[in-house]
């Protein structure tokens, strides 16, 4: 079926099979591969995007549910030569190792800082409970959130 959705500010009209996920739409139809495909069951958060401003796992949203709505992905946050504050903070604190989970974390952290510009450690850990990282042990990710919060202030 044909759906029209606004992705990172650009209206896109695409034809998708009925039960395609928003993640498949973004990656395979629109070539936006920043959102990663890993667990496909909402456990890992590496496909985190915004749907009408709400943080969601793109793998658990049916593409048809994005019809008439606005999607914002990690591609909208920064460019290689002009990183987003959160991306800069991840680099500076060493919060990136293999990097696979990073786009999802960056989106979830940006979402958190929009709602709470100076979160406590506890708030950070609770807000990022839906994002898994198997490399860093999370401490440097928490440090990156604090750094991003200070930089943005």
């Amino acid at each position, binding site marked *: *079926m*044909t759906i029209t959705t606004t992705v990172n500010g650009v209206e896109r009209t695409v034809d998708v099979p*009925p*039960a395609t*996920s928003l993640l498949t739409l973004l990656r395979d139809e629109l070539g936006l591969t920043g959102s990663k495909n890993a667990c*496909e*069951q*909402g*456990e890992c*958060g590496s496909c*985190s995007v915004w749907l009408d401003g*709400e*943080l*969601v*796992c793109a*793998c*658990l*949203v*049916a593409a*048809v*549910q994005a*019809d008439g709505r606005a999607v914002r992905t990690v591609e909208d946050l920064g460019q290689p030569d002009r990183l987003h504050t959160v991306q800069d903070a991840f680099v500076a604190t060493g919060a990136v190792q293999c990097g696979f989970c990073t786009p999802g974390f960056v989106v*979830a952290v940006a*979402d958190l800082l929009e709602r709470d510009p100076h979160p406590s450690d506890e708030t950070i850990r*609770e*807000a990022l*409970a*839906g*994002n898994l990282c198997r490399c860093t042990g999370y401490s440097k990710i928490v440090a990156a959130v604090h750094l991003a919060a200070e930089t943005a202030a």
Partner: protein
Amino acid sequence: MSGLSPGTLAEALEARAAHPEAVPIAGGTDLMVAVNFGRLRPESLLDLSGVAELSAWERRNGALRIGAGATFARIASDLGEFPPLVQAARTVGSPQIRNRATIGGNLATASPAGDALPVLAAYGGDVLLASVRGERRLRWDEFLLGPKRSALAEDELIVGVEWPLVDGPGSFAKVGTRNAMVIAIASVSLQLDTKARKVRLALGSVAPTVVRAPEAESFASDALDWDDPERPLPATTLHEFGAFAAAAAHPIDDVRGSAAYRRHAVDVLARRALAWAVDDRRAA
């Protein structure tokens, strides 16, 4: 195709009747997992996420009514006067999941581990259903029939839940391997009804459906001093209550936990819940 993305409940019910092959979807946090893993291949979806009527709630005639489409994120932020419900909502998945997952989806999936279900059972709530044929209301235990089995008819949609407002403290707690993204190994919801002088206790993840623990309930209802909230409960009473609660569980061994561990967890959780309720009542 627009009929399958209805904007009103009336349109949704017509679409449900006219397209029995279309699978209803709201938050999608259970359904899309089945799709992604190839266990379900829907010909089409009936998207309920645009039906605003389904996500409203109201207090009316001494009851709270919550639309099936209310997400756990909104329940946790907006329904603070119902602590057991908020506590359950906050334990669902992760922020990403809670932004999408709905109380109606918990009912549709009908898993004994659905976090909102012990709360519904402890409140003695009803499930509200509708179809083009009309509306009906089933008590929670008439709706939940078994693991992943409910009384939902082919042409029906879950409209919401409703339960009478109760005076008294209550709680929800669950045991899992970590603090987030956990399917309950065991859960309990306890509610004191100080007007009726009753304790209500529901158990999750320890039987084919959510269950109440009637013997534990009558034991505690008799043991509490309803006239004197200052009077503490002896530890022996709490232990007896825990034992009655554990006896109401009919758990299985599975990947998440053994039956013996689940019974033990119910014992501990039930004791804690009653102790919290006594403390909360004293503090009130």
